[in-house]
């Protein structure tokens, strides 16, 4: 840092008022008198014969973001508000034999403690309600919450959860989805099978078409577990009024579903709950179901005060949904000219400890798995498997990026084997207006070839041929 020493010295000595009058080359921070905004009115972008659609219209929230005025949940406070923290299991599979909250409850400043047994309906999930809000008798992954505390400061709440003593009896666990599919694998949610949802798409006659193919290629592709990593962690505030009406401010992206889940878990009528979705610092699919909202509501009820909970960065990784790891096995039969005659796809997705959005992900991925190509003979079989790891849920794409990686890498392999340019083989097989999708749907507004040609032209694909 090369600031002039005399400048630094000047800043130490003089008052802000004096410094404001000095030359600009001192490069002092702007002195804002904390006044009102707006500063400049946003200039109208209305044009002749208004066409609002197609405008590069300025976002009004860009101004509030740039000024630091946007209020996220962590920036909101209610009088008397308490802070909640959740104790995490830290063990992937176990029976809970004992939870002792006495020491935490005895701490000054701790206003309420909650365990699974206190929750009226301790289960939720968009398709299968297999996820508890707080683990009751069983822990299914290391990020499971086992108890929650509300205290007058965040630090106190964090200290209090350390004082909660939980005794676990470890149970067998399974972490690899391929292993979890075997009959002898430990059952994650006994007595149910670990394979908890399957999909199948079948069209034409793949066996016959493979026999007629000039060449058959196989490929196996895997993708890893990743996390949304939004800059803003999951957060919510719960507050009751004197009439027993609950207001929840939350980072949820689906407030009606959130309200329904809160009503179900707390056994409340829907019109006794108000859910307000605040401006969110990133979602990417990770904030589409409830996480702590009913917990905060019960802590608020017990303590008689509003309660706010903000996940730590650690919890963002360990206690919220992630992207499904996929294992994808492809087999494709092609003609000599590179036309795809038949394709089989087998998808095995790591379904984590709870279903969450797995059903949707598997469904979408199956439909997309063959790629945007005209394939008359197709068989897709897909399986989602429980493991004792962080639950896998919705994340930008719902399985689309994983299968795209597979079908496009596979396409390159096919192109390579046949000696055909990767662009050409795609143009040869891609959907056209009116093509039939893998599920027999007639497609409209199909512009995949346009996008291939446009990208190739802008990139200089033909010119840069190696």
């Amino acid at each position, binding site marked *: 840092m090369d600031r002039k020493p005399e400048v630094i010295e000047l800043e130490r000595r003089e008052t802000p008022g004096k410094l404001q009058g000095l030359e600009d080359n001192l490069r002092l921070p702007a002195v804002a008198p904390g006044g009102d905004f707006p500063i400049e009115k946003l200039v109208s972008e*209305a044009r002749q014969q*208004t066409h609002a659609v197609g405008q590069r219209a300025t976002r*009004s929230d860009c101004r509030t973001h740039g000024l630091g005025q946007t209020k996220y949940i962590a920036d909101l406070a209610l009088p008397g508000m308490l802070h909640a923290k959740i104790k995490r299991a830290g063990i992937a599979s176990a029976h809970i034999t004992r939870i002792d909250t006495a020491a935490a409850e005895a701490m000054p400043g701790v206003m309420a403690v909650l365990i699974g047994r206190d929750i009226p309906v301790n289960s939720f999930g968009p398709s299968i309600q297999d996820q508890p809000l707080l683990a009751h008798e069983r822990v299914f992954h290391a990020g499971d919450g086992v108890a929650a505390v509300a205290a007058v400061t965040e630090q106190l709440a964090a200290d209090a959860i350390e004082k909660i003593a939980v005794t676990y009896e470890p149970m067998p*666990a399974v972490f690899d989805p391929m292993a979890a599919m075997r009959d002898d694998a430990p059952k994650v949610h006994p007595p149910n099978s670990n394979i908890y949802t399957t999909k199948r798409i079948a069209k034409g006659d793949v066996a016959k078409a493979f026999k007629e193919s000039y060449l058959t290629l196989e490929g196996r592709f895997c993708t890893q577990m990743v996390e949304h990593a939004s800059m803003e962690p999951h957060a919510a505030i719960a507050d009751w009024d004197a009439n027993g009406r609950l207001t929840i401010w939350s980072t949820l992206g*689906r407030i009606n579903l959130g309200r329904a889940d809160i009503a179900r878990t707390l056994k409340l009528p829907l019109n006794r709950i108000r859910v307000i979705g605040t401006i969110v610092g990133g979602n990417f699919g990770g904030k589409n179901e409830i996480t702590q909202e009913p917990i905060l509501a019960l802590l608020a009820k017990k303590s008689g005060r509003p309660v706010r909970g903000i996940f730590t960065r650690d919890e963002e990784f*360990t206690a919220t949904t992630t992207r499904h790891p996929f294992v994808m096995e492809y087999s494709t039969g092609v003609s000599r000219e590179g036309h795809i005659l038949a394709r089989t796809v087998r998808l095995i997705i790591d379904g984590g400890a709870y279903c969450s959005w797995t059903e949707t992900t598997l*469904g979408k991925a199956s439909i*997309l798995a063959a790629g945007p190509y005209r394939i008359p003979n197709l068989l897709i079989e897909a399986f989602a498997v429980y493991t004792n790891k962080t639950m896998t849920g919705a994340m930008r794409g719902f399985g689309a*990026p994983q299968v795209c990686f597979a079908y496009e890498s596979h396409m390159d392999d096919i192109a390579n084997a046949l000696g055909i340019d990767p662009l050409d083989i795609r143009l040869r097989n891609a959907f056209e207006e009116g093509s039939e999708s893998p599920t027999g749907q007639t497609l409209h507004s199909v*512009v995949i070839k346009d996008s291939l040609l446009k990208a190739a032209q802008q990139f200089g694909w033909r010119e840069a041929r190696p």
Partner: protein
Amino acid sequence: MKRRGRGIACMWYPIGFTVSANPSAATVMVNEDGTATVLTGTVETGQGSLTVLAQIAAEALGTSTEDIHVVSADTDATPMDTGAIASRTTYVTGNAIRMAADNAKAILFEAAAQVLGVEPGQLEARDRNIQVKGFPHRKIAIGEAAKRCQLVLGRPPIGTASWNPPTVAMDPDTGQGKPFSTYVYATQIAEVDVDDETGEVEVIRVVAAHDCGTPVNPMLVEGQIEGGIAMGVGFALQEEILFDAAGTQVNPNLANYILPTTLDMPKIEVHIVESYDPTGPFGAKGVGRADLGADGSGHPQRDL
């Protein structure tokens, strides 16, 4: 030694939920000065949806984007919306808002028709006026019409509507059906340098050509695609949650879970592919997720 390579990947992505109904409801209220307020249950998660929805409402009402204020995300005050998920907001919520605006406009046209001496069917809304089609000199300001609705007609110009993409259930054994009403398509080409000793990959340049139907706000579409490419670079090259033998995460923090930074970003060129979807609001589809195709391009390994 660094070797340069390139890869091409194309993809398709559906808009909305798989088969199941995912409706959006909306209300449009035109004020006495011609500005309007839109009520929608959707949530702004940073993608700029509230701006896009304002543009759709403005287009339908014949006003300008800054005349529209969007109120969102309150179960007490805004109508039901399935939510900001599955890239559905522009398409589904957008259609609901367009229809709600049309319903509000129908009341405005009734009031305006009385003043202009024509049938409501002869009117159109443009440039903050309600004017006669083919004879734009005969017009009345939208605000005037709105005032008349309240004070003369006795019916305020408020319109409500809901919309759901039409689908057909899939056969449980063969999967045949119409799970989505529309799809978007995209191609990305990446140029990369690979160090053949360390295996390190550097993405130099990405050219992206994306279909989103009519782009309601091209600037926001570009922002979404660039954001998606950033996540694609991370997914393809850097990010991974690691577990130990006991099933505990090893790197649950931003120091050891490697996110892409500015220094990892390639040069990006975004091109929007011309397309019009008649089932979407003013031809729009959506863009949300299709941008993660970047991870399919140019990657030589089998495991990401």
